């Protein structure tokens, strides 16, 4: 069965404390892995697409990496405004399957 599993479910960090979020997947015929950010009461907002193992993408304090079985979202020196739920998704055919997300809270 195709699955996307994210860990941890929730993470509290002090401002400036770097960490990583994990997304592991069991999908055959992967056609892309995506990271989204979701703020409370809003729809998810696209961050990155990764296609092949070894690929990396960066945006401000975020960097996404991909291996054959998992992806990491590294957050460096986070700020309170980085607090949100981060969702990982994979594309199989035309279906895009989401994980349950990691709720990230950055304390000032």
């Amino acid at each position: 069965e195709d699955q996307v599993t994210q860990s941890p479910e929730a993470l509290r960090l002090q401002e400036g404390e770097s960490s990583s979020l994990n997304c592991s997947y069991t999908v055959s015929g992967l056609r892309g892995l995506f990271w989204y950010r979701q703020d409370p009461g809003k729809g998810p907002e696209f961050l990155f697409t990764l296609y092949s193992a070894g690929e990396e993408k960066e945006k401000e304090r975020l960097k996404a990496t991909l291996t054959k079985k998992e992806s990491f979202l590294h957050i460096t020196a986070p700020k309170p405004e980085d607090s949100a739920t981060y969702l990982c998704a994979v594309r199989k055919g035309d279906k895009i399957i989401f994980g349950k997300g990691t709720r990230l809270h950055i304390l000032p």
Partner: protein
Amino acid sequence: GAGVSQSPSNKVTEKGKDVELRCDPISGHTALYWYRQSLGQGLEFLIYFQGNSAPDKSGLPSDRFSAERTGGSVSTLTIQRTQQEDSAVYLCASSGSNTGELFFGEGSRLTVL
């Protein structure tokens, strides 16, 4: 419009009533997705449209759920004989490229009493 528009933003209904949720995608986007998000859960895939066709309806939870898209634009998700377990936020997204990057609306929050 500039983004994906969904209506209503909030809907409270009684068990057994029918509801219609509307999605107006970004102009020119050919792909349209519906997802359901329950409290504390991830996004559950419901249905995908390419143009007016729905090649993948595998996510619809039961035959009470149906969706259509007309003119390659607006889509309507209909839930008949609503049940309390249908309470959730229903999210619509559109995509104009083959990359899989989705642009989401803000969702329609459905509460079934």
